[in-house]
């Protein structure tokens, strides 16, 4: 997993969705009870990822949104260098 991408995604989540940085690990369940993201947040993630990496998440599955790790993997697989 690219730490650089993961860190950028984490920064985006902290800034755009006001998730406290100290409560957010790479494997935290984003849509679980602790972080508690919902459908509005997922729209925000789509825009955030597109702005950061130019990657379109509209084809991604629910599983791809599970954590920073899975989002990073999706970005790595779909990013055009």
């Amino acid at each position: 997993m690219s730490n650089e991408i993961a860190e950028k995604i984490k920064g985006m989540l902290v800034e755009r969705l006001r998730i406290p940085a100290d409560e957010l690990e790479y494997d935290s369940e984003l849509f679980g009870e602790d972080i508690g993201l919902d459908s509005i947040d997922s729209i925000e993630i789509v825009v955030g990822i597109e702005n950061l990496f130019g990657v379109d998440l509209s084809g991604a599955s629910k599983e791809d949104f599970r954590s920073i790790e899975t989002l990073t993997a999706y970005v790595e697989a779909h990013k055009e260098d």
Partner: protein
Amino acid sequence: MLDVKRCVITGLGLVCAIGNDTDECFESALNGRSGIADVKCFDTSNCYSHKGAEVGLATGELAKGKYDRTTALGIKAAGEAIADSGLDMNSEAASEIGVILGSCIAGAASVEKYYRDKENGGKGSIDDLKAIPASVIAGNVADYYKAGGITANIVNACAAGTLSVALAIDLIRGGKGEIFLAGGCDAFASLPFSGFHALKALDANECSPFNHSEGITLGEGAGVLVVESYEHAVKRGAKIYCDVLGSGVSSDAYHITAPRPDGEGQMSVIRRAVDNSGLTANDIEYVNAHGTGTAKNDEAEFLSLKICFEGNDHVYASSTKSMTGHCLGAAGAIEAVLTVKALTEGKLPPTTGYTEEDLGVLKEKAGAVNFIANKPVRKDINYAMSNSFAFGGNNASIVFAKDPNPVKNTVRKYDLYVTGIGAVTGEYSEETGDYRANIDADTFKSYGVKTAFLRKLDRLSQLQLLSGIKALEDAGITVNEDNEDLIGICIGTSDGPMTEIANFQKGIIRDGVDKGSAFAFPNTVYNAAGGYLSIFTGIKGYNVTIANGNQSGLQSICAASGAILFGYEDIMLATGTDECTEIDDGLYSDLGLKGKGGFTLGEGSVTCVIEKDSSADARGAKRYAKIAGFSSVRDTSGDTANNQRMSEAALTKALENVLAEAGMKPEDISCIYGFGNGIDKIDVFEMEVYKKIFSDNIEVRLVKQDFGEARAASASLQFAMLAKDIDEGRAANGIAVSFGTSALYSAVLLTGA
């Protein structure tokens, strides 16, 4: 006992995309003429939707071109309503006409102009700056027509227009006025378009309510109704359209943007309105539905209408938003005007846009409710309802009738007590030069607020949530299934979520209309704070947010008291909340009100629990003080072109009113909690008025020297500290006083419990 006066509609005014006056709009609605076209007032080329329902009049053509577009639309509709009602605004009668207007986006067009100018290196125009907050709208409309009655801006997003009419009825029945211009106004602006675009809640094509339901189309406009006591209308020989029987207001306590899928909140408000009107669901013959065109709304509304009107095979329903677009804070008012026309002319407007194939699907979804499709229905009816459901889970409903209220003539007058106080105040910071509250995550955690919930809330909402939770705790109230419908919320704020509004708009200016934040947008509506408080606590009763300058923190107590007196709730949380951030700091600095010769800005939130005697008795509740009188007064003395003016006559009248209501004399008052904020002109004026009414020795206690000018929060704090002083023997009777724009004053008299 209180008389439940007959309230009637004596004038109508309307402007929206389907017409520039009431007749033209109603004619268009009957003929299915849509006002939806490609958006003209800003560039949507990067957006997936380009549709909007704009009014065909430039801002310069409205109200002499002097006002923000939202206010200018309100002035246009108010002018028509005044002319239609036959009121002579040059006569003595004008002095008693109040103005209550709903708005969702307020001066969003001015927000854009102001920050775009700054972005381009300019200073930002002071006129634009002054036009930004919702607090100025009703006062500006009232001043424009020299209407001298009280004002209120109701800012409950898409339910605001309906709530304004509901509040007007309550004020008339509560003896606080005889005649109101009530309605709502909102302009087409980039902020809501970008927000709904981000939420993917715009239809790519023309909206299709109760049909394809793929999103809304935004519109703009204003609707104003002259709401008047029957006696007053008869006395002046007014033409009467119909009665307005009653209203319902409720909260979903579910989600900040989405309605409850089970329709519970919608059904609750329909039942409240029907019951408050002395009717049964079987009496209702036409419903102007909320019908936005989003899948979530339409599904919930199909369900709630089917269940509420089960067994009623003669009720018709339609969504006129299919033609007017969704006009947000104006929507309920526009639809109220169309509903009055439908009722009085016996012509029910349709929902448009159905194909033959669609009609088959509609039949399956509609059940026994007769959804009017494409063509109007001619039918003589007696009772009609208009419903609005908003962000924050706010629901409102009003009922119009061709005949007077057949049931309730009087309601019992309750004694009202302050039974709980929750306060969040600021501390002076050398670094920022103002008073800021310390609200950290650990404090919220100690009250069981999880990070997942808290992170959604903007600063204003966090301040409000904390004081609300503290007040419930102090009152010893646990919200549960038994009392969730008996508790309501009335939020007062001067500037609302200005930080969120400004930052969202700045984002659009920087990145484009297509790049708005879905996360931030829900917090740009003024009633988000009240919505979150309802969601977290589970309170499902009355829910209104009033944005009307500093005195909002006392006007909320007046409105909350009314909600209890009319039997809507047993308990109300009445609040005053305003934030102080770099944004607020910048705005007040630019206005020249902060700093040398001005005040020190503050922030905070104060929630007071107001409770009726029988409820407090049953709970064995602690009582801080008893509310013995409340009054709001304004006038049009002085220069009405200056909405920062002061009025000795209006302040004097407010104080005289509360003394009379409490049956007290000036010498009975031990102290006043005043509004002095360090601006010499205001402080001197205030003291002079008190000395004239009371004595040279009247004790005036101030809160702003210790906590800064926290606007609505200061007004609520004045009230709360007075209640504590009375409880702890530092005062026998006292009055809390505050002021708003356009010479509006509110006073509340407290005495021992």
